[in-house]
């Protein structure tokens, strides 16, 4: 009798406590903050300038791009808004939709509980986040591809391809000389990247040996020491490049999942100066003291 009486209450209590946990994984967008209706103004590109303050010419509408040079990624490439990925990777944003939940293992879910992102469906106040990038740590790989991916300058030599990223002014190297990842490799923020051409226009990069302290994305998806990142660069023509990113981490995810699916980059002129863009903890503190904490604070009495 006692048990029968207390059962409904227990169920209510259990549901109450479990709903937020479930919502963080398989959640209804109904409870997420109302989205801001954001977009670029229609003519925004007309006033665009490079880091030197010089206007950037727009491509002529309808002009067909010539074919790409073979086995060549070099150039200054801009992914536009698609590379920002504030909610998490473009192909797997943390927006509460079930189809956007990566296939976590039990260990992956445990690790997820430890991350407190400042954006996405599980967002907390930026000042309360334990995002390593907010603290000043490097983004590392694969987050360099999956958050604030802005202009990338790609340089190519006979033995390597170098990528120089606008955000944080960091660079990485992808070796193409046939070497192997060193045995007992010390984990690195950007790991160890090896690349090869699978045809004249498609370059595939495999990165392993990644530091477990980094997050996969801005939504705080974790990774283990078993993470393998596969990037596919596909040169569509002279002026366009595509990038896809696959996450393969059998310890934290039951199967590989696509984080970025054919993000298109446009080729900038060779004279394009890439402006500086950093995450500056001191400026973040100033911003929070001035506005951020006030905006999130208690109601005006």
């Amino acid at each position, binding site marked *: 009798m006692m048990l029968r009486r207390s059962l409904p*209450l227990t169920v209510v209590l259990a549901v109450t406590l479990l*709903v937020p946990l479930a919502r963080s994984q398989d959640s209804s967008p109904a409870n997420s903050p109302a989205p801001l*209706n954001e977009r670029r103004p229609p003519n925004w590109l007309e*006033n665009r300038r490079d880091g030197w303050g010089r206007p950037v010419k727009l491509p002529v509408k309808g002009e067909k791009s010539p074919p790409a040079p073979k086995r060549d990624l070099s150039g200054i490439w801009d992914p536009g808004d698609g590379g920002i990925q504030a909610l998490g990777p473009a192909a797997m944003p943390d927006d509460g939709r079930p189809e956007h939940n990566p296939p976590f293992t039990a260990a992956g879910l445990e690790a997820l509980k430890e991350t407190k992102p400042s*954006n996405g469906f599980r967002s907390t106040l930026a000042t309360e986040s334990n995002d390593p990038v907010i603290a000043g740590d490097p983004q590392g790989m694969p987050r360099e591809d999956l958050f604030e991916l802005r202009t990338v300058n790609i340089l190519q030599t006979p033995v390597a391809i170098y990528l120089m990223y606008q955000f944080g002014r960091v660079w990485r190297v992808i070796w193409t000389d046939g070497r192997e990842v060193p045995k007992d490799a010390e984990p690195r923020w950007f790991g160890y990247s090896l690349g090869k051409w699978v045809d004249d226009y498609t370059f595939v990069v495999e990165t392993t040996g990644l530091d477990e302290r980094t997050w996969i994305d801005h939504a705080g998806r974790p990774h283990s020491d078993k993470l393998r990142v596969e990037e596919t660069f596909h040169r569509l023509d002279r002026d366009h490049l595509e990038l896809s990113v696959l996450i393969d981490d059998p310890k934290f995810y039951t199967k590989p999942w696509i984080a970025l699916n054919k993000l298109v980059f446009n080729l900038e002129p060779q004279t394009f100066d890439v402006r500086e*863009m950093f995450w500056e903890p001191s400026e973040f503190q100033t911003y929070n003291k001035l506005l951020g904490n006030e*905006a999130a604070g*208690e*109601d005006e009495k």
Partner: protein
Amino acid sequence: MKGKVLIGLTLGIALSVLSLPLVAHHGNAAYDPTKQINLKGTVTQFIWANPHCVVLFDVAGENGQVVHWMAETENPTTMTNMGWLKSSLKPGDPISIRVITVKNGKPIGRIVYVETASGQRLPGRIVPTDDSGKSAESYK
């Protein structure tokens, strides 16, 4: 009696746990995206910095009282792509500005657009809900 206490406890836990997402990241959650207002004021400072640029400006309120407003935009890289410069605004500039406001009632906004005295419109990334000039609320 014990039952009422338990029900009260359950409801209390439910309310506190379910309300957590409502105080989420101030980037979105702090603002009411449905309400855009127009303001006219004078720039006191323009901070060109990460993570978001901020315009500080004074607005003459009721009874001649000056209200010190703040409005944020995006980071300098994004703003540069949208036609802004560090020199776009300076102290003393008269501006007309359209913002969405924070839910807590403080004079803080996120920029829809700014119009300078010369008539230049500097866009933010919020889509204007009403460009006819007949806004939901208007300040002098």
